[in-house]
């Protein structure tokens, strides 16, 4: 083997490995992406969004084993269109953002459920880590893709709104997650 080949081989391997072993990495276009949630208060649904979050997305529909989502959410950035509620959410009774400023979701496995791709992962929120599953809809578009994710989180699993706020006849038990991400290839 020539010295040229000896130098080139690791480079070739390095270049080849991600395309063989890993899913493609994407950058999130924050301006056109949204991390939303909705729940229920006194029989009325409300929608909210997190304005500050980051997501590392590696995904390939044919390489689910190496796909991965890693999302970090700033819990002080929740907005629901009501000042009282927005003021209460980061407080100790709900997210307790002073002690746990961020929520973290990382996938463990992706599985095919019929035609639906489901991402199983762990959500760490308010110091509690529990499994959460999300439905994934990934649509390649040109050099990038759009990624839509939906799922349900039981707020009381994480102690969000515990104590007297645990009354689910006033504050609904389920928080529906809906995210729309615009991705460009890295």
């Amino acid at each position, binding site marked *: 083997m020539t010295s040229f080949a000896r130098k080139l081989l690791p480079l070739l391997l390095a270049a080849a490995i991600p395309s063989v072993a890993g899913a493609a990495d994407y950058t999130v276009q924050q301006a056109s992406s949204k991390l939303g949630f909705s729940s229920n*208060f*006194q*029989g*009325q649904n409300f929608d909210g969004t997190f304005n500050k979050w980051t997501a590392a997305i590696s995904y390939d529909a044919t390489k689910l084993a190496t796909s991965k989502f890693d999302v970090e959410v700033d819990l002080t950035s929740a907005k629901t*269109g009501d*000042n009282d509620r927005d003021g*209460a959410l980061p407080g100790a009774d709900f997210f307790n953002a002073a002690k746990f400023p961020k929520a973290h979701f990382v996938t463990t496995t992706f599985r095919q459920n019929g035609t639906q791709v489901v991402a199983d992962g762990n959500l760490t929120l308010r110091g509690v880590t529990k499994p959460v599953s999300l439905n994934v809809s990934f649509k390649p578009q040109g050099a990038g893709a759009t990624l839509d994710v939906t799922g349900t989180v039981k707020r009381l699993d994480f102690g969000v709104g515990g104590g*007297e706020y645990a009354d689910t006849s*006033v504050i609904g038990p389920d928080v529906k997650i809906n995210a729309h991400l615009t991705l460009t290839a890295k």
Partner: protein
Amino acid sequence: MSLRSNDRQWGSVAKFFHWLMALAILGNGIFGLCMDFAHSPMQKIGWFAWHKSIGLTVLALFLLRLLWRAVDRRPPDEPGPRWQRAAAHMVHGLLYVLIVALPLSGWWFNSLRGFPLQWFKLFNLPALTGKNEELAHTVIGIHEYLFYFLLLVLVAHAGAALKHHVFDNDNVLRRMLPFGKLRGTNSQGEKP
């Protein structure tokens, strides 16, 4: 006592509406003024929910009462000076207006604040208008002062009734009392 009113006294349905609504309006008004004493936000939410549910009930009872009034005959005025009868009718009219205005102004405030409106956790009612927190500030003042005004009108209403009962010894109050026995020659109020 019959369900319907007769020429001498109010029937039990009219009495039922009168006293139940009197109790609900007074109770809910005083309760409403105390709601700031809730010791926690969740208790306040719960108290407001009760206040709103009772207020909506008053509104519904009022509509039923109007319906009943339309089909029920009403006893004619007890004899008295013309100005007293006119004043009594004016006060009744004012009370009717306030009975509607109080819950509606509360509903209006609730809508302006963007709060849900739920009746005893059973069903929700829509907002009357979009969110406007600045206007909400004014409307909650109106809601509160309407109750103070109602108390004033009530002083005239109940004061006059008591005056007739205690000083004039007539049937003005007796014919509306739940188990009132009428005074005078035809004290049964209705023929068997």
